């Protein structure tokens, strides 16, 4: 298959009023298939709400530097 896939973050709310929590990720070539994959992969709860968001649509506000960012993984071991 020659399709291009995007990574989607999955967010859900179990009950009305609950916080919206990050549930996991799915990879899919289209929004429609991301919807289906998330619905079937994360079906452990009777969700009040469930969303998929393309990762590249998320706007970064704050991002802390990783613990080993300066040295890089390649310099370890």
């Amino acid at each position: 298959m020659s399709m291009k896939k995007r990574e989607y973050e999955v967010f859900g709310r179990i009950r009305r009023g609950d916080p919206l929590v990050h549930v996991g990720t799915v990879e899919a070539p289209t929004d429609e298939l991301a919807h289906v994959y998330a619905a079937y992969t994360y079906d452990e709860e009777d969700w009040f709400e469930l969303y998929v968001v393309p990762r590249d649509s998320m706007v970064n506000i704050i991002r802390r530097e990783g613990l080993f960012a300066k040295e890089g993984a390649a310099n370890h071991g």
Partner: protein
Amino acid sequence: MADQANGLAAFIELIETIADNKYVLGDHLVEIGVSGPTLEATLSAIAMAQGELGHARLLYNWASDLRGTGKTDITDQTGKAFASVVQVSDWIEMISALYAVNAGTDLVLKSMLEAGHPEVASRIRKLLAEQKEHILYSRGWVTLLLQDAGAVPRKTREALDRAVPEVRAWLSKLEQSAELASGGYVPAQAGFAARFDEIVARETQRAVNNAG
């Protein structure tokens, strides 16, 4: 009285046809779906198999209730599944059959709801909601397969050319059934076949346009 009995018999045949196709597709989604091109596609196919088999069981039980025979063990389809569904042997054929059957079935079930026959709504409302994801999945994969490289688009068109006309012929027969319309099970002049043609043409053409 005879009209009522004829209407009921036609309606039982209609729901058993849907049940048979869902039963066979449920089996295919397990046996062939497990060899899907991606992990997500495979997991979804297996989950969807449970859905299709659950819908089939609900419809068979409904048919038994309408016949007044009570619940019976379901060991096989009743022989009304479409040949193009029964003969599915690979992923492309499975997706094409799933797409054609779900698109056609969705039209019929929604019309049954619109017809407003007592008892119908409570039986199929949940089924219709669950079927939405089956349609998104099969439509999404038909689109991807039609846009793929090599022999895949040709094989997909060939598989659609087998499944779509069979579903269309069934829809055409349903819309011409005086028994179903007079029994209030589907609206008169439902126009199933023309609406199905329009949906399939629009969705497959969109895939071709996007590929180009």
